[in-house]
């Protein structure tokens, strides 16, 4: 039973967290307010801006279309075709999630030197993003009631028509929401498009920021990007909301079961399943090892690698700790209470979901320069950026963990003589802590892979694995970059993948 009126201290703590999380967005708006309308108009009507818009939207659309087709096909194959080692095919399908887009791009760049423009950006991002569609559709198919299609056939519909009326509507919301997450990913992505030299908004914002005259322009472009991202988030919410209304009954219908098919179709199915993992991981990892084997002019200094690894972990851990401090009250509030205020607080906490890393970084650069110049290029600003960007993960983990503790337990504790706070300490806290801690760890691991905000905000003289990869690929020191890329995959990407697996596979729970 969810009580409606949250205790005041909790509400205040959560609202404070949400306010802090909206600082980058709010300051971006404040900063934009200081820009003259003529600059605004000037930037917006520039042909360059229209080009950026076409490139960004074009890339997002192309990647969305590709991942939609490939993702639904993969999920459908996994749900209906019996393959040896079934579970491992699911792991393989999810694996591209583990690869930061710039590592995949780097791998392809060292395989096909000089490859640049729309095609490679589309190619690499599509492969990396397929799991965003395949996993939720797969989960929906596992929940889907196969009997609906049988009922449709028994009522005289043909094979295709009964699939369309019986199965398709059950997976459409998942496919739609997944595809919009892909759109958000593509709009926010910086690493792949920058390495592959395809000018989209994120890339242009970083360029403008780098040139002294372009800082106002960067803010205007960032606002346009935020507007696009918010539109995508809004669409995603809408699609998911419709999906939830569509689900009826207890959901205990018979799920689809995989059947054996002839060898030739099986092989073509395997080819479809292999496509994204090979492009996203197979080729890049092979390229990294090949580069290592070739050796480099400048030998790798193990001490540098160790330094970068340690500072990566330090900043990321700080960001994760900060994220937890902000997220726990919001997550608890969202798990236990309902209402307009609660929704608003939760939405504030989720603002990082719609903010591309480059935008958060840009806003925080200006804010720290203006308000606390001593903090500019300090660790704390970067940690704060991580906290805002990945706060949704921490809130989600808290909300799920606390939500899984039945309120009846704390009521029993209270009836047995524990005051409210003590009841939570004795019951809710020990039960929810493991899940919340795992959320914090996930934030840390994700932050270790973050590139654009790290580039803009890292303290002078501090190098992280991500920035080392970046600087070495820019200077074509591919051999040395390979070490850092492998280290990143080893310490951050793969653990993050394993940690987020159960949640990602079954969709949001």
């Amino acid at each position: 039973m969810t009580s409606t009126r949250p205790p005041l201290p909790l509400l205040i703590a959560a609202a404070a967290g949400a306010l802090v999380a909206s600082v980058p967005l709010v300051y971006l708006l404040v900063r934009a307010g200081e820009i003259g309308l003529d600059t605004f108009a000037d930037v917006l009507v520039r042909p360059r801006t229209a080009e950026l818009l076409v490139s960004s939207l074009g890339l997002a659309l192309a990647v969305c279309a590709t991942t939609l087709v490939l993702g639904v096909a993969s999920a459908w194959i996994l749900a209906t075709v019996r393959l040896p080692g079934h579970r491992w095919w699911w792991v393989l399908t999810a694996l591209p999630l583990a690869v930061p887009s710039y590592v995949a791009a780097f791998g392809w760049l060292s395989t096909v030197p000089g490859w640049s423009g729309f095609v490679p950006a589309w190619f690499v991002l599509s492969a990396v993003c397929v799991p965003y569609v395949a996993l939720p559709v797969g989960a929906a198919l596992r929940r889907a009631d196969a009997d609906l299609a049988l009922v449709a056939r028994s009522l005289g519909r043909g094979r295709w028509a009964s699939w369309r009326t019986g199965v398709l509507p059950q997976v459409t919301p998942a496919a739609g929401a997944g595809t919009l997450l892909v759109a958000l990913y593509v709009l926010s992505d910086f690493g792949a498009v920058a390495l592959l030299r395809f000018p989209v908004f994120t890339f242009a914002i970083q360029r403008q920021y780098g040139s002294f005259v372009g800082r106002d322009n960067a803010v205007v472009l960032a606002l346009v990007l935020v507007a696009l991202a918010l539109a995508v988030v809004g669409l995603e919410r809408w699609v998911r909301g419709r999906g939830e209304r569509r689900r009826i009954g207890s959901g205990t219908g018979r799920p689809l079961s995989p059947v054996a098919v002839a060898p030739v179709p099986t092989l073509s199915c395997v080819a479809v399943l292999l496509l994204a993992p090979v492009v996203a991981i197979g080729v890049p990892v092979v390229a990294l090892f090949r580069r290592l084997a070739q050796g480099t002019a400048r030998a790798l200094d193990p001490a540098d690698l160790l330094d970068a690894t340690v500072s990566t972990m330090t900043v990321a851990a700080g960001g994760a700790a900060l994220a937890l401090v902000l997220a726990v009250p919001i997550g608890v509030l969202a798990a236990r209470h309902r209402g307009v205020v609660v929704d608003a607080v939760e939405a504030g906490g989720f603002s990082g979901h719609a903010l591309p890393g480059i935008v958060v970084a840009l806003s925080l650069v200006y804010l720290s320069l203006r308000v606390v110049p001593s903090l500019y290029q300090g660790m704390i600003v970067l940690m704060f950026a991580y906290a805002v960007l990945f706060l949704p993960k921490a809130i989600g983990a808290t909300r799920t963990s606390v939500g899984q503790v039945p309120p009846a337990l704390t009521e029993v504790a209270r009836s047995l003589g524990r005051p409210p706070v003590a009841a939570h300490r004795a019951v809710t806290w020990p039960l929810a802590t493991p899940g919340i801690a795992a959320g914090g760890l996930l934030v840390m691991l994700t932050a270790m892979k973050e590139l654009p905000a790290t580039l803009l905000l890292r303290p002078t003289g501090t190098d992280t694995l991500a920035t080392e990869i970046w600087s070495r690929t820019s200077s074509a020191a591919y051999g040395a970059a390979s070490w850092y890329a492998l280290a990143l995959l080893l310490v951050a990407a793969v653990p993050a993948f394993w940690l987020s697996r159960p949640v990602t596979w079954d969709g949001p729970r």
Partner: protein
Amino acid sequence: MTALEITGVHAGYGDAPVLRGVDLLVAEHRLVALLGPSGCGKTTLLRTVAGFHPVTGGRIRVGDRVVESAATRVPAHRRRVTIVPQEGSLFPHLDVAANVAFGLKGRDRHDVADRVQRMLELVGLAEHRRRQPHELSGGQQQRVALARALAPEPDLVLLDEPFSSLDAQLRDQLRQDVRDMLRREGATALLITHDQQEALSLADEVAIMRDGRVRQQADPATLYARPTDAWTARFLGDSVVVDARVVGAGTRAETVLGTIDVTGPTDGRSVLVRPEQLRLGPDGVPGTIERTVFHGHDSLAHVRLVDGSTVAVRTPGAAPGPGREVRLVVVGPGWLLPEGGDD
């Protein structure tokens, strides 16, 4: 002495009233069942007594303390009222002994150990003290939940449909065990249930709740034989309610079942006869069997009378088949239902 006294309690959610003036008494060391259909407000009443839902009017007294009224609101943890929720709700991170000891915080260590041991022996799970809750069966979990609720010797134990999630055989056994355990411990308990059999077979007293009010509170036999109105009669079990015209000194009434002995308020216009009071035989009013429902130990036969109405008759074993002409007589007095109160 009265352990729980609920007087004129009103409560609701937002603008929707759920409790509309509930009166209820539970005497010390007694088990009272609060029986009502779903949505009648019994869960809300339990939550107000436990301290999880505020009242908007009326008063709740536990022992000699007012715990809830317009002026006072004793927080849940100071009420000395414990609960046994529907699913048991054992603390999943604590073993059986720690669950039972949860409400004994602040007591001497040896006292706690003794009390836990005693409680686990009471519920017959002494050898399971180191088990985790998920290693127990549903019935065992409920026993631990009861031990946990009884351990701090509360003034009142609230049982919230504690048997509803168990399968039928286990349920019967556990019901009787729980009643014995409560008796041996001398506990005062309020049992929430929507199951008539459960209420009638377990409780010292049954309170019938409907639409946010307690309609009638009495011992099970009285309640079954002398319900306050036709709705209560039907809610408690199969009923035959027929129009009646009281004759003589109010001890006889003319009905479609013949002129029969009656008791109850003499202004009654209808009379309740339970199906087990009707007998098929060679004498009595004539009728035709319309359909029968076979239950194994007995059958319920629906008999159409000459005036076109239908009455239910309980007969041992199998009943005659549909279409058979029968005669029936009433054994024992019918109960005159008070005027009004019916729907």
